[in-house]
């Protein structure tokens, strides 16, 4: 991704977008082709919005923050899990294939049913955590420690990239297990034993096959695979110690 002053900044070229289409009640899915003008800075999301506005208003897709903070625009682009809002279209070739995330049921077109992702999480996932940035800073009076949101943006990219989830819907998947490990690292009032009991399951931490594709796919530095490994370490080590996984 580039910003101002990109050497190829001006002249747009035309790309063919092959977009997965499916409406409830359709007998099956299909690909629709669209010719879209793409500049050096055009993101896949901008290209799909262009299709919505100028070619086909019925194309459904999710987006919200446009800067990789909300996690709604996860999809497969040329078979790779990405957030469309921060994926430049320019470098993806002349034909760009866009599909919804794998391993999560499709609601329509590029929209997956996120209820199926959230059902997997442990009940007490945290949202706000202690901030580890700028450790040398001393917070003002009245603020004990600076806090920040958890990195996980619940986008589902890891679940789509996971080769184990590809053949087993029973596996809770990387996002949920990473959230559990975060609870062990910083319990915030939650009983760690409950979290470990939840993870200590054939379809929990033990079903991971250590392909690390979740970590590769994660757009928010959660490092789910390393967290699953640390979770296993806690389970294997008699639940005595929990390793803390540092950001990449």
């Amino acid at each position, binding site marked *: *991704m*580039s*910003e*101002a*002053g990109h050497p190829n*900044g001006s002249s747009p070229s035309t790309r063919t977008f092959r977009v997965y289409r499916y*409406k*409830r*009640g*359709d007998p099956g899915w299909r690909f629709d082709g669209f010719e879209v003008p793409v500049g050096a*800075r055009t993101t896949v999301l901008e290209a799909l919005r262009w299709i919505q*506005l100028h070619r086909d208003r*019925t194309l*459904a*897709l*999710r*987006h*919200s*923050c*446009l*800067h*990789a*903070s*909300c996690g*709604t625009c996860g999809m497969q682009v040329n078979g790779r899990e990405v957030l469309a*809002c*921060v994926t430049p279209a320019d470098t993806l070739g002349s034909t760009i294939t866009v599909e919804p995330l794998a391993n999560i049921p499709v*609601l*329509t*077109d590029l*929209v997956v049913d*996120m*209820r199926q*992702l*959230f*059902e997997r*999480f442990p*009940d*007490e996932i945290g*949202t*706000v955590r202690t*901030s580890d*940035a*700028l450790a*040398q*800073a*001393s*917070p*003002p*009076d009245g*603020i004990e420690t*600076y*806090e*920040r*949101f*958890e*990195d996980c*943006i619940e986008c589902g990219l890891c679940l789509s990239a996971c080769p184990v989830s590809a053949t087993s819907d029973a596996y809770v998947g990387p996002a949920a297990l990473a959230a559990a490990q975060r609870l062990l690292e910083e319990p915030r009032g939650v009983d760690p034993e409950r979290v470990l009991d939840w993870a200590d399951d054939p379809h929990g931490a033990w079903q991971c096959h250590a392909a690390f594709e979740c970590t590769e796919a994660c757009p*928010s*530095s959660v490092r789910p695979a390393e967290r699953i490994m640390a979770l296993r370490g806690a389970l294997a080590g008699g639940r005595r110690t929990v390793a803390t996984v540092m950001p990449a």
Partner: protein
Amino acid sequence: MTRSAPRASRDAPHVLIVGGGGTGGALAHDLTLRGIRVTLVERGEFTSGTTGRHHGLLHSGARYAVNDRESAIECIEENAILRAICPGSFEENDGLFVALTDEDMEYYADFVEGCKACGIPIEELTPQEALRMEPQLNPELKAAVRVPDATMDAMRMPLRFFATAKHGGATLYNFMEVLDLVVEGGAVTGATVRDQVTGSEGDLHADLVVNATGPWSEKIARMAGVDVPISPSPGVMLALYGRLCNMVINRMHRSGDGDIVVPQRALSVVGTSSWTVEDPDELDVPEDHVTRMRAEGAKLIPAVAQAGFRAAWSAARPLIGSREADSGRELSRTFKTIDHADDGVEGFVTITGGKATTLRGMAELCGDVISRKLGVDRPSTTRTVTTLPHTAFYAKTERRLA
């Protein structure tokens, strides 16, 4: 702990809300608690218009304390209410207003006085004190004032209102586009919609239709033959890699470009510019605005100049006023409920203007207007009802009440 109001009875009045942004979601919540039946339709995903795209600032109101005190007072009131009813949805690290130049220092006295007049609690800091709190600040700063700003998740905080409304019995449809309004005998009685999930089209009828489409509200109002004075006023924001601060860092001056840095997870968001457009769907991201964000932001936090680029995007504010206003900065950030009965069209109300920080307050006042029109005699209770966490929005039941 939250308990929703008893579900609306079958013969309760029915309101159709058009627009699934923060305003629509908060209004659905407000009306549901009053026992009104609510259906909400949004053409895309919820919060996909303006709501989800803002920089994530929970305003203390200090930004408006000099020029727009009405907005400032709204902000500080809602700031406290939202922290109470949306626990866990904010990084409660406060904010700093930082003076860098002699010109900024001339603004200082007005700023402090304005904050005090609006009831915004502040703490005046020396440069050394400010640098201890935020070591990455420009060391040349002349003074700083601490204010109760906070960072919110621009999608997940509003989603709590959707979640609470949904589990209270409201029907919320995303991917449901309004094609036209149904107008019968001088009154709006519903909307013709297309369900983008199933492809089916049809009419949804209601006793009252609310236009909560923010910068799109003029487009929707025109379907009923009335006018809404709205200026879609986009701003460019820039997300950079690295959490360069924990508090919200504002420039102490009159609103200007690139005068705020908001930390968001492991990113830092620099905002924002301002201009006005005709069509809020056609927003570009001018290169020179992106360059300016970085240059101005680097004055507050020098590391902004080198931080890695993550994204640049535009969002359209729904400012009340004519499009003649050049940059949009002159327009108030307050909100307005318009009962179009005054324009000769019954059953149609527009709620617009405002900002994410005031979504609940907007919904309360709009809810009052709607209740009066529908003869519902129940006051708003949203000030004290704790909203469900955002995860409950996706849950089939209310089981996640953390």
